[in-house]
């Protein structure tokens, strides 16, 4: 019997065990070492060992067995876990995660004997020593005070089932395509005056709408499904940078579309890193300013109408708008006059300009080259916005406003030559119609003259190799967008109106089309490409420079 056919199931279930083990280990460090928690950890290690043994995966079996034995000793009261014990457990869990990842890729597993012996030696040495009280650690997640509730059990009791995400995507696609079929039927019915078809067609429309709602509901996941990784990350960063802090997550049950969640994992990693690394002071610095030595960072999620609000808040040193302003001027991002016109919030947002950093040194913790500009771009890509509030000496709050779903967006339909294109409304700041003489040409580059400034302009029909439209004398429609805080224009042939569209990603070989971020299917069966204005104008500013 070929056991390898169970590989995917083994991988996904092992990951669930490891996620819970990791979360419980962290609570162990907080001093939550009640018998329920230890028991549950033991059970997860035990299950993993049994599964790995069945799969004949020696290194995973050995390591999870060592972990199981260590937990068994803790459970029986032979010794209390120290910080080092938790470190060792987390190392084991990390290694197990890597081994499971290798299993997923079908790779060879390295042996885990060294780490397994370290765990066994640690248990033996700690057991000999007098039991020590666990040093309370300073990282907390919100449910710290609650009894250890099993993340794992929950799925059993809610009678949930596991669905591959690709299947879910397929369901979304099919329900979208059904709309097209409905349109064809409606079209035929009206052309042939088939009145008796009207009632069932109406019923079909209602059912299709319901189906789509349900399918979208199925794509929703609680924020907690991505938030599990953050407490561990914040803890590690805090230890690495010598900061003492408590970390809390609020609202992890609030649901978002899977697509949105996937897009915010990295921006949140970056914001939390910044909060630990640059936001919080060291305990000594905090005491010197009259603050408690232990700082606080929180990540909270709340729902506001059809938006989700995510806040990363710290009570650290805060940011000084005056310093940011002078630095931005020194870097040539804007002149004195422009800086004077900005509100304090707009000044804080200058830290999202490419290459801008207020930290005196770049540490390996916050990474090099990846800045707030990347965070802001990622948020804008999914139609979200970022705002920053900060009070020097009291801390900063980064607020992300996100759409609940990215699959359905409002788009402006435009015509460019033969092409009909959709532009996400969230990417456009305004639209206008201009006279031919308001557009000036310098070499190959176009500029729109507005209020005495020259706004770089991208001729969208030319960009997509359509026939040129500049020769006509009509009013020319322009979409205004922003790129790197600078206004840019997109010249189109005609504005066709706004509508809700159902976005679909492009796959190979179309995935790398410049300026196109996806596609949608209209009710009449026509495929329309979705334009990414930022990508269209991306090189415009540099191209336009002499």
């Amino acid at each position: 019997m070929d056991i390898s056919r169970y590989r995917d199931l083994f991988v996904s279930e092992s990951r669930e065990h490891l996620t819970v083990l990791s979360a419980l280990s962290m609570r162990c460090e907080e001093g939550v070492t009640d018998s329920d928690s230890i028991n549950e950890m033991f059970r997860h290690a035990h299950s993993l060992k049994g599964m790995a043994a069945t799969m004949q995966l020696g290194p995973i079996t050995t390591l999870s067995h060592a972990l199981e034995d260590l937990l068994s000793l803790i459970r029986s009261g032979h010794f209390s876990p120290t910080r080092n014990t938790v470190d060792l457990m987390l190392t084991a869990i990390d290694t197990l995660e890597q081994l499971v990842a290798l299993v997923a890729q079908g790779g060879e597993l390295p042996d885990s004997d060294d780490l397994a012996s370290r765990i066994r030696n640690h248990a033996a040495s700690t057991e000999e020593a007098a039991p020590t009280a666990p040093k309370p650690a300073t990282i907390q997640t919100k449910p710290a005070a609650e009894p250890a509730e099993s993340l794992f059990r929950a799925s059993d009791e809610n009678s949930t089932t596991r669905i591959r995400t690709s299947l879910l995507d397929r369901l979304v696609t099919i329900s979208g395509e059904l709309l097209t079929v409905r349109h064809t039927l409606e079209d035929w019915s009206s052309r042939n005056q088939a009145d008796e078809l009207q009632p069932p067609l109406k019923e079909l429309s209602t059912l299709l709408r319901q189906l789509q709602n349900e399918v979208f509901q199925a794509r929703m996941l609680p924020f907690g499904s991505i938030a599990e990784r953050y407490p561990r990350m914040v803890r590690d960063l805090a230890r690495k940078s010598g900061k003492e802090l408590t970390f809390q997550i609020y609202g992890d049950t609030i649901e978002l579309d899977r697509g949105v969640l996937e897009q915010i994992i990295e921006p949140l990693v970056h914001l939390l890193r910044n909060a630990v690394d640059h936001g919080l002071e060291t305990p000594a610095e905090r005491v010197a300013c009259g603050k408690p030595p232990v700082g606080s960072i929180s990540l909270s999620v709340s729902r506001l109408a059809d938006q989700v609000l995510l806040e990363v808040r710290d009570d650290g040193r805060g940011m000084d708008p005056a310093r940011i302003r002078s630095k931005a001027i020194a870097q040539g991002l804007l002149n004195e006059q422009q800086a004077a016109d900005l509100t304090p919030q707009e000044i804080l947002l200058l830290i999202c300009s490419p290459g801008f950093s207020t930290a005196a040194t770049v540490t390996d913790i916050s990474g090099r080259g990846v800045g707030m500009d990347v965070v802001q771009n990622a948020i804008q890509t999914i139609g979200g916005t970022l705002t920053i509030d900060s009070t020097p000496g009291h801390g900063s709050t980064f607020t992300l406003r996100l759409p609940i779903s990215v699959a359905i967006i409002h788009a402006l339909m435009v015509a460019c030559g033969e092409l009909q294109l959709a532009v996400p409304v969230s990417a456009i700041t305004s639209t206008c119609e201009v006279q031919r003489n308001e557009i000036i040409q310098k070499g190959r580059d176009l500029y729109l003259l507005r209020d005495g400034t020259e706004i770089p302009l991208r001729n969208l029909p030319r960009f997509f190799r359509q026939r040129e439209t500049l020769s006509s004398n009509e009013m020319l429609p322009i979409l205004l967008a922003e790129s790197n805080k600078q206004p840019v224009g997109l010249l189109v042939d005609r504005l066709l109106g706004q509508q809700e569209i159902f976005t679909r990603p492009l796959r190979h070989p179309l995935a790398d089309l410049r300026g196109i971020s996806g596609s949608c299917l209209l009710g009449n069966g026509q495929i329309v490409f979705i334009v990414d204005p930022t990508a269209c104008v991306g090189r415009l500013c540099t191209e336009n420079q002499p």
Partner: protein
Amino acid sequence: MPQTVMIVDDALFIRTVLRNMLEDCGYHTIAEAGSGLEAQRYLHTVKPDLIFLDIILPDANGIEILDDIRCSLPATKVIICSSISQEQTIQKALQHGAAAYLQKPFTQETVAAVLRQLEDS
């Protein structure tokens, strides 16, 4: 008519592997439970011929469930299926009325051997 089986184990992976191995031996799995609570819920509805029962469950100890089954469904045979290899635990399971003890990790061969042992007895 093939004998009916219920599998009680918190790991979906183990349940799936075991179910397929049992199907290959001609046994039909009519119920699976991931916890003691689920097991209790299905037990009297499905009345299986055989139950493969794990010892370490999220909410219960398999031996306690074994006691319940022996009282309420005396005709049902219970096979304890665990990776615990201590003789003491195995003896305890048998004393409490387990028909057999299947050691994890199991293979198609060890599963078939346990089934043969039950058929012979």
